């Protein structure tokens, strides 16, 4: 479904699907795997936690990699740069990937990013050779700063994490897209398929989402819908939309219409 000649590059990694899908909050692991397949994603996010070993014959890593999904570890739950940097190191160690979705959260009611800590953590992790994908607010200035620090992409939010409110400030996303050269990945707040289509119509390179699929009444069907929406939005962006107008512009010519008052000419 995704076009073969419309690959996008994430820090040198060519990807066909423009969706990055989270692995949390599904009704079950089976539904998660089916939904990931249905979304067409190639890259899935995981968190890193203490787990007592030897408790189960199945583990998430094997289930995901056996199906060919690449893994993007996150630093969810980190509230300081120090915390996030340690988690990134553990993730690189556990998963053998330099990719890190960097989240440094400011408070637990809004889950909005703490920009001061985020810039600090980005600086450290870039210096230590990580491919840093920072989750940030939809501020063009911050996005530019992150690019200047060496982030591999910027991940502005559409709305708060898990809110499903959709894209609250499309203009800021347009500004971000026009001001940085690295990929712009809309992260968090997407609620349904049309939100995804809009993100791509705005020119964003990818969308990262989780709850919109996981918490739908039918996650697998929603994953499929969102895959279609991503393709639709991206194709619409590439096609280049028509200009918007205040007043109507007729699509059929005026010339050659029949005259209802036509009378016999004497």
């Amino acid at each position, binding site marked *: 479904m995704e076009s073969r000649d419309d690959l996008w590059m994430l820090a040198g990694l060519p990807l066909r699907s423009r969706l990055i899908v989270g692995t949390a909050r599904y*009704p*079950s*692991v*089976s*539904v998660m*795997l089916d939904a990931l397949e249905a979304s067409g994603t*190639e890259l899935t996010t995981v968190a890193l*936690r*203490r*787990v*007592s*070993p*030897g*408790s*189960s*014959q*199945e583990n998430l890593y094997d*289930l995901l*990699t*056996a*199906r*060919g999904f690449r893994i993007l570890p996150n630093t969810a739950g980190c509230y300081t740069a120090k915390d996030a940097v340690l988690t990134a190191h553990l993730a690189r160690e556990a998963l053998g990937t330099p990719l890190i979705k960097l989240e440094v959260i400011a408070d637990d009611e809004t889950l909005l990013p703490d920009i001061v800590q985020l810039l600090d953590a980005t600086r450290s992790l870039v210096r230590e050779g990580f491919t840093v994908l920072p989750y940030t607010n939809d501020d063009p200035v911050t996005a530019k700063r992150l690019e200047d620090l060496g982030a591999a992409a910027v991940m502005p939010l559409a709305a708060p994490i898990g809110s499903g409110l959709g894209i609250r400030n499309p203009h800021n996303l347009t500004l971000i897209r026009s001001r940085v050269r690295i990929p712009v990945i809309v992260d968090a707040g997407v609620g349904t398929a049309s939100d995804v289509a809009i993100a791509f119509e705005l020119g964003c390179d990818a969308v990262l989402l989780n709850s919109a699929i996981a*918490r739908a*009444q039918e996650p697998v069907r929603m994953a499929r819908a969102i895959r279609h929406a991503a393709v639709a939005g991206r194709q619409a962006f590439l096609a280049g939309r028509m200009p918007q107008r205040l007043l109507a512009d007729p699509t059929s010519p005026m010339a050659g219409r029949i005259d209802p008052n036509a009378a016999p000419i004497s």
Partner: protein
Amino acid sequence: MTHPESPESTPIIVVGAGVIGLTVAFELARRRIPVLVLERDHVGAGAAGVAAGMLAVVGEAEHETAELADLLVTSQRAYPAFVRELQHASGRDVGFVTEGTLIVGLGRDGEQELRHSQRAQDRLGLRSSWLTGDEARALEPHLGPRISAALLAREDHQVDPRALLPALAAATEALGGRVLTGTRVTGFDTTAGRLTAVVGVHQGDDRPFAIRCEAAVLAAGAWCAVGLAWPAAPVLVRPVKGQVVRLRGPAILRRVVRDTQVYLVPRRNGELVVGATMEDVGFDAAPTAGAVTDLLWQARLLAPAVYDLEIVEVGVGFRPAARDHLPTIGPTDVPGLYVATGHFRHGILLAPTTAVLLADLLVDDRMSPLLDRFRPGRFEAASRTAPSVDSR
């Protein structure tokens, strides 16, 4: 050498004296089949001893698929008769309370969650009534002022697992079965591929035992995944940790009250059970400050009067969960060896139906079509067809 107390042979052995194992044993004993239950610890040492005992169908609709809804509804309808027969056979009360459940919403976000739950219920053909916050408070005066809406699920009752399990053990023994605690099963003997005996060790002195049997039912919950030498493909379950706080004091609620974060289950003995976390952390049995904080914080929003209740206990249990969160019930690849585990959040509710379906299978060789989705081998077929890394 066998233990003096353990017999050399018995027709049917059930491994695990949790709610599933004991209910299967009770059902077999009712059918006059001699049954022996082997438990490594004590009766109810696993998940059921911590469980709140909600018999929730409507309240769990959002978590469930249509596949499980049939089994949940069947079991919920079977419960009153099951309780009646169990109380008669054991001479004990099991704390069956039939006041229903209030599912409440706090503020705008809470109401939206309720609407979402109601849509999930509709899809499964389940019904509940919508109440305003004030209507809910008229039913339960201790509900907090921030509750702005509620769903009343009239059939979501509760039972007290800490009364239920001893009653099941007593009833099984009264009907001629046996429950042997302190015996840890480590594997199974087979001859020509067929189950012939259950083997293990006695806790404490580690003396081995082997008990011949015609059939065995493995009902060891999350522990089906560990410490067992499998003669067949192992049943895949993982432990999902749940922490539960038990409070005591003046009765503040009549019925179960819950939202998407927490449930409050009032017992007739004055206990209030507040649960439960869902943690994928393996067998980590430590109760944690974070879980208690989260549970009690949310409980206080639902019913502010919990503030003054006494903390009696913080319990930790491990729900057995398969990859699809559906139970695993039925015959394994080894003739004579059966499995009943993976009941996840629904062990107490699903126990009677699980037991009847399994007893039909063991005694009459009758396989209900209801069990089709819960076959032990269902994941092997799935993993064989899964695309390989290279195919992407």
